[in-house]
């Protein structure tokens, strides 16, 4: 809400600096978003008074004006028709600067001297009006610099009015808060309807309201013989400073009163209303209606319509119809001032995506008591600026509505706030914003809330008002008296943060992506339609197609991160992401949410180091990370041939533990990388960490360090390619409980594949004797060489 201080001063005396006022309003909950200083852009323009006008026939259309500029008279040639003797006008004297125009010079046309120029509002940069010379208010002083006139200089507050404070969407509403801050009472505008009125309104028009819930109050007033002309400068100026566009005398008045008092008004061209009647009713079936912006709107059952004898003439509270709008030829005005149910207006406005200054106010609730007062104010202003004759009286339909008083205890206020504010301060605070104290008791009071405050309905709302006016700054700072609550440990968070720690210390960088994918992403990974990753959750109103669904797996986003970095010259990268994936479940409202860990490696560990050369990452780098994480949390992962369609089968594996698939690791297929325009190899792994969290062991038992020395023996075997190294190691381990570890320390391929194992023997009871170890060693050799395809390498 834009609030020009010059207008605000109609209602309150502002005796503090604007910046101080802004600060105080902000601390009242009316946050000042910006302060705009308005000052004229022109220089050297004087208030002149026309002493004489003479039409010069040989210069068709021009008049020669003699202008009193205070200390001397000058002659000026002028083409405008709207000036007359005695008018005060702006005169730009030679040397004057007007916005966007060359400097003003003295000119002579056919012997007639023109010393300067009379200006329109547009030439002065004050408005878009170029219909004639800007006729200045009579009280301006002849000879004075025009830019020094106070009304041309202003300060406009842009106030961020929160949705609960519909009452502050008007200058008067803001004035009410300002008055409370400055210990004043806001002055209600004073005006009088003209004495000379005509007829009875009931003879001109009839009114029916069919649904009092939708429209609990409706007032009609009329004026005839109006002139549809541009409004005077003072009205245009105020409307403009509030961010609206002046249109004509009638429309401007409706907007002016809405800005001033918060009551949206609508003016109908009376002569275009069929059967001279207004009916307020709810649409019964969908119909098409053209609003005054020229757009055909589909109205639906339940929308509030303002109809004449034949059909809709306005979409209530939102926008008028083209069929009854004010035009240049309009003579008679039927003025609507009403209260429409906020919920109805809001529903319709939202559905149509149509917001207007009127709907904005109606949907937050306006002042029910102010409906006719605003209509009178508008009729008086129309008479003042558009002339015409006021039709006597009004037609009003209203629902009797009552608001219950609210009982509030003094103690409760201080208890909730942690304060000890005395009773009279509380009551005065509430009175200062026009709340009415109905009854005062020893322990509390009953307050009645006026109809402009729709946000105050129970005691807590009153507590808030007291806090706001008393000042949040004056409320003490304390710590809660409540006893300590036992802190609940969160196993998931603990494990996730330990996994992150592990990965960071292993050289991985964390990425965070939007949890969105496109359907195309899933197809890019050759995932079949029956795969769970196709049971995605779709967003009905996505930002774009790329963000159309919730992710069911992490790979596409991190692959994109890798492409992004490679394109910026970063060819070696290790990334991980831990985040949610979502699967829609049949017959369930909410999807299943899992947490996945994603790993990605590309390039090599380091680009270079002067002492050594680095190999590119391969399958065993990604495998080692998964094994390391498993080891850290006591989970033994098993790796099997992968079934994932987007992996190079040879260099990939599915990851299992206790027979359950946790995920996969391996090299991403070239066909997939091509889509994301990556030319180098990428190794990834994706693990569902939900089952991981369940099984993870966080507290290990300490096992005492053996007191007896260990014995190490190495074995080398020739092993056929079809026998996995891990099965041999497992076999060896099972041969004796004294074997505590079996490692593979060498592997090469010549004619045959040779694998060398290092076996560590350890007893916790005694020092191992050579004979004991030798005996096991024999058994190892015997057991293994029994297997087809394994022979001892001597």
């Amino acid at each position: 809400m834009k609030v020009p201080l010059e207008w605000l001063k109609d209602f309150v005396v502002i005796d503090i600096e604007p910046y101080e006022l802004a600060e105080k309003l902000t601390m009242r909950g009316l946050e000042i978003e910006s302060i705009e200083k308005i000052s004229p852009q022109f220089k050297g323009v004087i208030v002149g008074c026309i002493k004489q006008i003479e039409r010069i026939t040989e210069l068709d259309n021009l008049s020669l004006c003699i202008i009193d500029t205070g200390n001397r008279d000058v002659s000026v040639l002028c083409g405008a028709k709207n000036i007359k003797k005695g008018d005060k006008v702006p005169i730009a004297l030679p040397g004057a600067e007007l916005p966007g125009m060359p400097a003003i010079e003295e000119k002579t046309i056919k012997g007639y001297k023109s010393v300067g120029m009379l200006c329109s509002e547009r030439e002065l940069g004050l408005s878009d009006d170029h219909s004639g010379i800007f006729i200045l208010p009579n009280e301006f002083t002849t000879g004075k610099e025009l830019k020094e006139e106070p009304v041309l200089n202003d300060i406009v507050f842009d106030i961020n009015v929160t949705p609960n404070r519909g009452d502050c969407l008007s200058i008067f509403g803001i004035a009410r808060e300002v008055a409370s801050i400055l210990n004043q009472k806001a002055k209600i505008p004073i005006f009088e309807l003209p004495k000379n009125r005509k007829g009875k309104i009931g003879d001109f028009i009839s009114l029916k309201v069919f649904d009092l819930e939708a429209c609990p109050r409706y007032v009609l007033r009329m004026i005839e013989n109006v002139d549809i002309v541009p409004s005077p400068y003072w009205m245009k100026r105020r409307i403009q400073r509030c961010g609206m566009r002046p249109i004509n005398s009638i429309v401007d008045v409706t907007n002016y009163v809405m800005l001033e008092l918060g009551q949206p008004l609508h003016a109908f061209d009376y002569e275009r209303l069929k059967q001279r009647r207004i009916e307020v009713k709810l649409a019964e079936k969908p119909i098409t209606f053209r609003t005054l912006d020229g757009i055909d709107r589909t109205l639906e059952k339940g929308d509030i319509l303002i109809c004449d004898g034949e059909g809709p003439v306005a979409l209530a509270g939102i926008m008028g119809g083209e069929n009854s709008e004010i035009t240049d030829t309009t003579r008679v005005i039927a003025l609507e001032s009403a209260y429409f149910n906020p919920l109805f207006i809001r529903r319709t406005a939202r559905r149509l995506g149509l917001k207007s200054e009127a709907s904005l106010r109606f949907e937050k609730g306006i002042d029910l008591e102010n409906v006719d007062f605003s209509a009178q104010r508008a009729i008086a202003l129309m008479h003042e600026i558009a002339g015409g004759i006021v039709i006597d009286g009004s037609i009003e339909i209203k629902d009797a509505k009552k608001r219950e008083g609210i009982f509030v205890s003094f103690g409760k206020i201080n208890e909730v706030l942690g304060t000890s504010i005395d009773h009279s301060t509380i009551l005065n605070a509430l009175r200062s914003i026009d709340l009415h104290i109905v009854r005062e008791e020893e322990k509390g009071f009953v307050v009645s809330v006026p109809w402009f405050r729709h946000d105050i309905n129970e005691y807590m709302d009153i507590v808030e008002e007291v806090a706001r006016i008393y000042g949040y700054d004056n409320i003490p700072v304390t710590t809660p008296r409540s006893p300590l609550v036992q802190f609940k440990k969160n196993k998931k968070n603990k494990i996730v943060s330990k996994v992150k720690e592990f990965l960071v210390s292993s050289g991985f960088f964390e990425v965070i992506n939007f949890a969105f994918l496109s359907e195309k992403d899933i197809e890019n990974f050759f995932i079949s339609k029956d795969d769970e990753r196709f049971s995605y959750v779709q967003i009905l109103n996505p930002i774009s197609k790329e963000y159309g669904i919730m992710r069911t797996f992490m790979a596409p986003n991190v692959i994109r991160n890798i492409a992004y970095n490679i394109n910026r010259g970063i060819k070696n990268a290790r990334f991980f992401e831990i985040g949610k994936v979502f699967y829609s479940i049949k017959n369930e409202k909410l999807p299943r949410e899992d947490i996945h860990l994603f790993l990605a490696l590309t390039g090599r560990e380091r680009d270079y180091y002067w002492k050594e050369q680095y190999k590119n990452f391969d399958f065993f780098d990604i495998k080692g990370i998964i094994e390391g994480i498993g080891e850290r949390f006591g989970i033994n992962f098993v790796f099997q041939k992968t079934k994932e369609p987007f992996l190079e089968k040879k260099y990939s594996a599915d990851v299992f533990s206790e027979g359950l698939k946790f995920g996969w690791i391996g090299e991403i297929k070239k066909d997939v990388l091509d889509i994301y325009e990556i030319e180098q190899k990428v190794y990834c792994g994706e693990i569902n960490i939900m089952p991981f969290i369940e099984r993870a062991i966080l507290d290990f038992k300490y096992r005492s360090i053996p007191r007896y020395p260990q014995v190490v023996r190495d074995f080398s075997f020739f092993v056929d390619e079809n026998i996995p190294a891990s099965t041999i190691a497992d076999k060896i381990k099972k041969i004796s409980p004294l074997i505590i570890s079996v490692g593979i320390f060498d592997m090469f391929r010549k004619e045959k594949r040779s694998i060398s194992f290092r076996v560590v023997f350890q007893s916790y009871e005694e020092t191992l004797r050579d004979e004991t170890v030798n005996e096991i060693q024999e058994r190892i050799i015997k057991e293994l060489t029994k297997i087809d395809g394994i022979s001892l390498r001597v």
Partner: protein
Amino acid sequence: MKEIEELRLKIDDRLASINNLDSWSGVKAELLGRKGLFANLIDRIKLLSKEEKRIYGQSINTLKAYAENRLTEIKAQLEQKQKEIADKASWIDITLPGKVPLVGKIHPITKVISEITEIFVSLGFSVVEGPEIELDYYNFEALNIPSDHPARDLQDTFYIKEGVVLRTHTSPVEIRVMESQLPPVRIISPGAVYRCDNDISHTPMFHQVEGLMVDKGIRFSDLKGILTIFIHEMFGEDTALRFRPSYFPFTEPSAEVDICCVICGGKGCRVCKETGWLEILGSGMTHPQVFRNVGYDPEEVTGFAFGLGVERIAMLKYGIDDIRQFYYNDLRFISQF
């Protein structure tokens, strides 16, 4: 005695020919060996008369001692020299770069969430999480935002289907917690939230930390106390802050918390829109209707809630001016934190 003089010259000549340990051994054998020069001389002495033996023998002995001393000296010199050569060969350039261990980095969002969480955990708050795809009821209705409420305009919501949305804040977690337990409640809830917005200061997904404290006798002044501690821990003891009335449908009274602009120190700049203050979190006393919705009696208990945007705090803390930077995942960005 001329012969002795010639001998000495000859010995010096041989000693001078030594240039390494190998030739040293050769010369030593040549002079002092079993078939060397002196062995030869001693053999010849045996043939001389007693008197001659005495004079000649003495000279020879002196000469031999001389040769021995010189050889010892030369050996020491040679060894010293060899050691120097070896030293030189094993020299390293200590200005060459060392091998820095390669460790990764945590994303700044995670970092800031951890920092915030730690502060509240130290104040006795437990960390609770909830679903990111949420029922409209938990995201709005239960929080006193019915479907026609103007406050729905404050948040552009992603819709999944009738009654299901991407959560627009982490507040629904508070409702779920209150539904599942009786007071006292003291929780924070960090996590991803979603709003239909995408520009230099908005991303469709971002992160929040929300908190809730409910018990008998919780006061607005306690809200001020807890959040003042938080701000001082997060931004430093000297950070000026203010509580400003605001509006949230689920709290009343509501307060926006501003801190003195960290960029300009309160003088007014582009970041704080010339106000000298930065909005840092929203808060307020839990609305009685929210308590009724979860079956708590607002006459019995009171509480406060607060929420803050993680990206915003990270942006202020690190001076990042484009929120989208967090989601490009550029290694040159992440590696700075």
